[in-house]
């Protein structure tokens, strides 16, 4: 009864092509945004914000970036950790060498650096696909692991190889408290998510999906594969670069080169598989899952009174990830996002059976 489209007729194409055509969805989204911006900063504990909400938001952004490339455009990448690293190190270098630059500009420049690198390593996608492309992206991952560990300029000649970020100043205000950082990240992620939704609804997004579904047919109707693939790599890497910069600056504060290793890349891939390939919402679900699972695994056995060592928790995590990947691929390849959509469909009928 609650979730019905009854009476909601669209009389113009603009109305029909809205992001959230169903009124209940619009209400829900507005409520969510209001709660996220206005309620959470006052209600949530510092720990919740610092350890859960902020990493969730940043990883969602990174997952979103990867989803644009892999979920919407069908180009597999297991090297996205490297592009996050490029964003992070670019931001670090720019911020340290040009200390008066506004953080927003630093982020945009970091994103652009990552976008350029992404496009470079995306060039092979014009000739190779699928798992061949995945191996090419691995080259990026390991190469940049090495570059940021060995080329001393990037770490500002730090003897240990680690870097620490300077204070973040936004229009004169220094971001100190967790709440300030949270709102900053939230605003950025919300904007980027909106932009992503617009892009996938537009002709760029359709060209990506056409390439994903059948690239020969896409070419035949006039889509240039090079333009579509490189734009996907560029935009995806931009998102991921900004996420990397945020990860380093806001979440980590200081990091060593291995912070952006292959494990991160694989985690991103898991996020979008479990969350839902080709779904903006799915990226958020996947990130939430990856953040929440270790916490649950840590707390649950203790709560149930079963003692498990931390090493065992980590093994369990791996086993559950692996099992879930296989499970989702078999049962619901479109991930949690599809389960959510199915739930909504059922809700449309509720309480009637059909």
């Amino acid at each position, binding site marked *: 009864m609650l979730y019905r489209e009854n009476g909601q007729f669209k009389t113009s194409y603009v109305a029909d092509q809205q992001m959230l055509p169903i009124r209940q969805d619009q209400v829900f989204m507005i409520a969510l945004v209001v709660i996220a911006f206005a309620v959470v900063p006052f209600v949530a504990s510092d720990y919740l914000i610092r350890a859960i909400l902020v990493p969730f938001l940043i990883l969602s952004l990174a997952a979103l970036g990867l989803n644009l490339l892999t979920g919407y455009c069908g180009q597999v990448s297991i090297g996205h950790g490297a592009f996050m690293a490029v964003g992070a190190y670019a931001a670090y270098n720019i911020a340290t060498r040009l200390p008066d630059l506004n953080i927003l500009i630093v982020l945009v420049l970091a994103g652009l650096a990552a976008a350029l690198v992404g496009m470079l390593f995306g060039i092979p996608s014009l000739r190779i696909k699928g798992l061949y492309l995945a191996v090419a992206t691995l080259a990026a991952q390991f190469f940049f692991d090495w570059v940021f560990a060995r080329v001393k300029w990037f770490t500002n000649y730090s003897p240990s190889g680690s870097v620490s970020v300077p204070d973040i100043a936004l229009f004169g205000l220094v971001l100190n408290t967790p709440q300030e950082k949270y709102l900053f990240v939230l605003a950025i992620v919300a904007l980027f998510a909106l932009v992503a939704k617009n892009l996938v609804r537009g002709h760029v997004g359709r060209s990506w999906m056409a390439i994903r579904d059948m690239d020969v047919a896409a070419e035949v109707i006039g889509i240039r594969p090079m333009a579509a693939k490189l734009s996907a790599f560029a935009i995806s890497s931009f998102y991921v670069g900004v996420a990397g910069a945020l990860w380093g600056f806001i979440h980590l504060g200081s990091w060593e080169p291995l912070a952006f290793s292959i494990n991160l890349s694989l985690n991103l891939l898991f996020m979008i598989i479990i969350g839902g390939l080709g779904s903006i919402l799915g990226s958020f679900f996947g990130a939430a899952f990856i953040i929440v699972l270790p916490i649950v695994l840590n707390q649950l056995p203790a709560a149930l009174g079963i003692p498990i060592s931390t090493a065992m928790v980590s093994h369990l995590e791996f086993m559950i990830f692996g099992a879930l990947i296989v499970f989702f*691929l078999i049962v619901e390849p479109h991930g949690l996002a599809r389960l959510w959509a199915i739930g909504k469909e059922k809700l449309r009928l509720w309480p009637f059976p059909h």
Partner: protein
Amino acid sequence: MNKLMRNWPVIALGVLLAAGLVAPLATGASPAGFYVEVLLGGLMTGVLYSLVALGFVLIFKASGVFNFAQGAMVLFAALAVARMAEVMPWWLAALLAIGIMVVLAWVIERVVLRPLVNQEAIALLMATLGVTYFLDGFGQTVWGSDIYEINLGIAKEPVMVLDGIFQGGILVNKEDVVAAVAAAALVAALALFFQKTPTGRALRAVADDHQAAQSIGIPLNRIWVIVWSVAGVVALVAGVIWGSKLGVQFSISQVALKALPVVILGGFTSVPGAIIGGLIIGVGEKMAEVFLGPVLVKAFDLAGGGIENWFAYMLALLFLLVRPEGLFGEKHIDRV
């Protein structure tokens, strides 16, 4: 002449690699004996890579599935042998481990492959990625996460040979020789298996065309179990040799992933390709690390070496650009 001109990128790459290979010797930057040692070391590592890659190729040939989990299988098998050998002679442990790998193959086929049989390659790749993670966690739960040793009873000290020809002689590891011999024997056995036995023929038929093979009565599921078991055995051999040399510890990245560039070079469907690709990668890596590394460190003021972490992948990337089907693979034609 035409063919030569059309293939110029491949030839250019080949010339570049060959130049890199002989440079240390030609420029006199390294004494001959040392050079041969590094070369041999590279070849030996290459043999190990080849063995892991062999498992990949077998599974891909027969089922078109790219088994990301091959490396995890290697480690799982090695760990099984290592831990069981603590309470029984190593050959018994190995036999039991073979049994375990067969069971594992059967489970994977039933639980993962069969439900996904009509999905695209990407889905299968990601499924094997899931299997990798699962095996990682499961393996460490069952066998433990420390470094374990495999003792095959082979002397560990290197032996000095050929000190008449090269000044100072060359250090050769007996283990490495055993590894090379074992690998050669394995390849020969597999070649015989594929060419001469009915099951081998069935496997080749399945590799060519699943549906056609099914329609002449070849039981697809059973074939896949066989293939995965054989791959498991290959993984076991690789794991035991590797483990004996370096000790066994579960670590997801390096082992499995290194085999990927090998199959890129060699071609996904070629057994000789896996061998040659492995050797090229092994030698290339070692040479790059030992001879190219110091040059780069000096030139760019780097904080140390580590070239071998990415050299293989960059080489694979170059190959993908000039010859995506690898040295011995089949060219893929898209019919519309």
